């Protein structure tokens, strides 16, 4: 019998099929299943507050995975996520509220329309790289929000639009638990999709474009179509996240999608780990919960220092910046790299604990 305390610490793959497998071995598959089941069981023992936060995390996870496909895997920087979230949210608002379509139709439509607009703004990426592309996507952010703010007949202008929570038959997703389940299911589907995407030709083409686009082109990858495709796929997922967020807050206004949101999403994939689906998940959860954790800390400190509240009220921005800098300096690989280091440490223990 296999010693249960010894982990596998080598690469035993003997065929290409094994190398491409979604789960490296049955243990990983079981672990994933257990994690997903645990996530589904959260509402049984957690308070409404925790579920509310978990819902926001799930939505952020979807958006961060979407952005990571573009920025982490294809290497195209985008600072326009906020605006693409807005496109998704507003599309769903217009279809459900103005035209009375069902949420279940308008959700994929929101993704599709965001994909089209995202692809459109991805066209300059053929000629622009790095900082220049960042500025081009910044233009997307500004232009889209300006259009939404000024196209009053369709978007309601400054006062925004009101949405309803989705419903199936007579059941509507008004309480915390049901909406959490909805977001969780979409987040799990997105994760599975993203994991599989990088086992396909398209996904590997994205990686090749990221690593060196000239080499990718020589290998026969059509740079233009794959870059635009990356923008479209990424925007589709971001649009879905935007629609879910809009139906969660039940309102869309321009101010919900400022440049600050874009930066938050970039921070998520940066802190989590560029080019990793698991990293995007970790980063999204971390950045969403960071202000909450700091709030608890300030509350805790006020027990000892009564003035802590006014002293530390701008603490959050400070810590947010600090965390970003620390990650960039000490762990550019992000949370997922830390996770892997910890895992490897235990795998190799006690033989080689030095790195």
């Amino acid at each position, binding site marked *: 019998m296999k010693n249960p305390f010894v982990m596998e610490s080598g690469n035993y793959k003997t065929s290409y099929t094994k190398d491409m497998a979604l789960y490296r071995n049955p243990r990983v598959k079981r672990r994933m299943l257990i994690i997903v089941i645990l996530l589904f069981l959260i509402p049984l023992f957690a308070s409404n*507050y925790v579920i509310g936060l978990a819902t926001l995390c799930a939505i952020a996870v979807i958006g961060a995975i979407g952005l990571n496909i573009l920025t982490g895997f294809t290497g195209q920087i985008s600072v326009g996520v906020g605006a693409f979230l807005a496109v998704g949210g507003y599309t769903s608002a217009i279809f459900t509220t103005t035209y009375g379509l069902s949420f279940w139709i308008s959700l994929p439509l929101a993704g599709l329309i965001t994909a089209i607009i995202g692809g459109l703004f991805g066209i300059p990426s053929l000629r622009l790289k790095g900082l220049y592309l960042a500025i081009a996507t910044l233009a997307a952010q500004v232009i889209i929000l300006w259009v939404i703010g000024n196209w009053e007949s369709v978007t309601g202008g400054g006062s925004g639009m009101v949405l309803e929570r989705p419903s199936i038959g007579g059941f509507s997703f*008004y309480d915390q638990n049901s909406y959490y389940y909805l977001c969780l299911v979409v987040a799990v589907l997105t994760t599975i999709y993203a994991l599989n995407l990088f086992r396909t030709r398209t996904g590997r083409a994205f990686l090749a474009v990221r690593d060196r686009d000239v080499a990718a082109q020589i290998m026969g990858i059509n740079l233009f179509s794959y870059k635009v495709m990356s923008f479209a796929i990424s925007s589709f997922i971001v649009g879905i996240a935007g629609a879910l967020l809009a139906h969660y*807050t039940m309102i869309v206004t321009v101010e919900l999608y400022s440049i600050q949101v874009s930066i938050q999403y970039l921070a998520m994939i940066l802190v989590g780990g560029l080019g990793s689906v698991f990293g995007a998940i970790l980063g999204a959860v971390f950045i969403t919960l960071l202000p909450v954790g700091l709030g608890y800390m300030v509350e805790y400190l006020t027990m000892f220092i009564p003035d802590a509240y006014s002293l530390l009220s701008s603490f959050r921005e400070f810590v947010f910046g600090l965390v970003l800098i620390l990650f960039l300096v000490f762990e550019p690989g992000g949370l997922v790299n830390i996770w892997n280091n910890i895992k490897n440490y235990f795998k190799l223990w006690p033989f080689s604990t030095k790195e």
Partner: protein
Amino acid sequence: MFKKKLSFVLVSLVLLLGILAACGDEGAEPTGDGEKVIKIGGLFDETGATGDVGAPYAEGERAYFEYINSKGGVNGYKVDFIGEDYAYDTSRAQQVYQSLRDRHEVAAVLGWGTADTEALRKQIINDKIPFFSASYSENLKDTGSESGYNYLTAASYSDQGRAILEWIEENHKGDSPAKVALVYHKGHPFSESPIQDIKDYATENLAGVVEITPDILIELGDTNPLTTLQTWEQNNEAPDYTIINYTWGQTRNVVRDATSLGWDDTQFMGLNWTAGEGLIPAGADNQQWVDALDGFIGVVTHAFPTEDLPGMEPIIEYLDSKGKTVEDINQKFVQGWATASIMAEAIGIAIDQTDGGDIKGTDIKAAIETIDNFDLQGLAADVSFAPDDHSGTDKIRLGQLKDGEWEIITEYFGISDK
């Protein structure tokens, strides 16, 4: 090696924070010893874009509840006022609201900005939590499914604009119609809020007397309004009046630049967030601002602390206990205080009606809707609510800057007086 270790330690520290956040400490609510407590939530902007006016407003709200608790609370109930700074970040406001609702289980919320108030207005209906905002957007007057749990504790921006038009009609000299220019940020929820209503009111009620010129569109963050004003001036004559809807900083920029263009005969006017002590920046070298803004007329919804009013007595008593004077506070403090006192009035009614039971958001909603001519003793116009009327008042005063000091030039008036 060392670097790796350090990063490991740092990152695990940060991770730990995250875990702390996820778990939270559920049982840490202050319970008090046997006395009854009602929890009210607060959403403040103390460090964000509107922190200049948001911080004193929040301080006023906190001060009021501290004062009322020191007097034995509301009908024997202590008010536990739990607030958090959301730094004018709408997505952060969503999180803070969730924490107030689910973690602290507050019965009502005192909020702040237009964008976040509007972003929450559907959720508070779902959660049955009454909401007083410092945003007086006309959108919040709805009593049904749009914003049925929002209440306006002062005249809405649209009512303020309508009142200004009425004042212009009465005070305009000359035979030709008064040319009124509206200055705002198109697409901005707060700034754009009253514009359409002001235009409609002018065409429906004041045709031939007031003429609205093409809009002057300047963004809130535009630090150089001069270019926009110059372009506008090429196609239009300088207006007789302007109605500005910004906060202090941008208002003073616009007025300064318009004055420098030689709009000497233009009467500059603004809604309530343009008025207040901070319109003229403090400091010894502010004479240029005193000169540029001289004669500016602003909507004054709440009293200045320097006014001699019966409502000021408890504020002065509170300030004395802190070793402060009225010089240390400003009009926004009074505004926060007055808003909190309306909430306290509603809490008091709810306590009477529920006979000391558990007070829920619906009880407070019902209580608010029975408030009839609640006397704020001069701190603001008296407010009344009803199930089909969520706007407390439409009455305002106008104040004018003279040599850098605000002077009240009208009594409380509103368009319902007509």
